[in-house]
């Protein structure tokens, strides 16, 4: 049986993890390779690296990091953040990334999804959608959720799937950071309407939230950051909880 995936997300700046990581067993909590290895050994199903490096020349650092990660871990990983061209994708895939995630560049130029899917295959193109509820309507946002667009989230999700995205990473800006649970209704609506997998993100606070997003939310995978980084929810514990709740997980 295909299992539901648990995906820790690491924010990377200039080759280091940021946004706080508190892993007691690490020598250096800022080293993404070391952290990736811990997650991989603990049973994370995949990893996502989100590069928030501001400048273009520091991109080379990212490619070098991707190679180090690829050599060290035995599970798939996705790299996202500021990727806009075929060249960017080629560089990161050749460095060893399994998938890349695009966000603003897809909104600005939707044709890039078709292009990337044709060139590299849908399986390695994840489209990240940041969404926020505005007076009862869900709108796509860019720039880390700060800038609203006129795109309605449900329609955009369908469009990116039609254009060849292999997966959707759906982040609810309304839920992100609240630890009050995932956006289950919206996730379910999008996941049911599409034939590609949906990764839910934003709002994880308890183990029950993961169960809810896999059942009510119909998510194929769930992503979280700080609750894993601060060991509030250790992955092995989360997986035994989900297994007890009859959710299929890899152990």
């Amino acid at each position, binding site marked *: 049986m295909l299992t539901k995936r648990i995906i820790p997300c690491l924010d990377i700046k200039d080759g280091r993890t940021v946004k706080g990581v508190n892993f007691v067993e690490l020598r250096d909590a800022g080293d993404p390779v070391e952290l990736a290895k811990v997650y991989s050994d603990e049973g994370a199903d995949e990893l996502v690296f989100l590069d928030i490096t501001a400048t273009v020349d520091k991109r080379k650092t990212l490619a070098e990091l991707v190679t180090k990660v690829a050599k060290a871990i035995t599970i798939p990983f996705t790299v996202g953040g500021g990727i806009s061209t075929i060249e960017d994708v080629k560089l990161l895939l050749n460095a060893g990334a399994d998938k890349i995630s695009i966000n603003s560049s897809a909104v600005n130029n939707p044709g890039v999804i078709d292009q990337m899917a044709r060139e590299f*295959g849908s399986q390695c193109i994840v489209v990240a959608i940041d969404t926020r509820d505005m007076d009862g309507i869900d709108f796509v946002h860019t720039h880390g959720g700060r800038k609203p667009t006129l795109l309605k989230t449900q329609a955009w999700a369908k469009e990116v799937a039609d254009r060849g995205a292999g997966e959707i990473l759906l982040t609810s800006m309304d839920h992100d950071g609240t630890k009050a649970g995932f956006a289950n209704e919206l996730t379910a609506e999008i996941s049911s309407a599409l034939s590609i997998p949906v990764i839910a993100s934003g709002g994880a606070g308890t183990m029950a939230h993961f169960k809810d997003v896999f059942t009510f939310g*119909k998510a194929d995978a769930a992503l979280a950051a700080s609750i894993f980084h601060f060991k509030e929810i250790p992955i092995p514990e989360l997986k035994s909880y989900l297994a007890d709740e009859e959710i299929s997980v890899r152990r």
Partner: protein
Amino acid sequence: MKTAVIKYNSGNVQSVLYALERLGAEAILTDDPEQIRSADRVIFPGQGEASTAMNYLKARKLDQLIRDIKQPFLGVCLGLQLLCEHSEENDTECLGIFPVKVKRFIPENSQEFKVPHVGWNELEHLADNPLLKDLPDSRFVYYVHSYYAELSEATIARTHYIHDFTAILHRDNYWAIQAHPEKSSKVGEKLLSNFLSL
């Protein structure tokens, strides 16, 4: 002991090379027929589209080379599908090492079953085979694919998604696996190290 990894226009061969490196194997990425022929074993990785890959192989006469090879040979993902007889993906005649047809997953209920089949799923009904020796108890491997090989006499492990399909094939010196062992944690490492000691 040298392992040749066949270079063709498929994505993500890098991760196969890194996995071999982790296992301490000497591996080269090559499309040179002489290097492939003289290697101790050969890995045929793959990700991408079947007809484009077949055309690429034919243009470089690698199709005949693969059919003639005598040493242990491992197809991975698209590599498995190309070793079969025919793929529904753009109606492609494949290499025909395994008399097996490759079909597209068609979910009856698209809410429950999505295509591609992405994620960790289990190897089941394992045959007694050197490639499957001493696998860990947890037999989850990582899949990303929209097409699958039908069950056949050459099937030595199955996986269930929508229905049972071929997870691993074996015949003579040819083995092939639909999942990505290079991305499948300890199980994948064991499969690769078993292949390296064939």
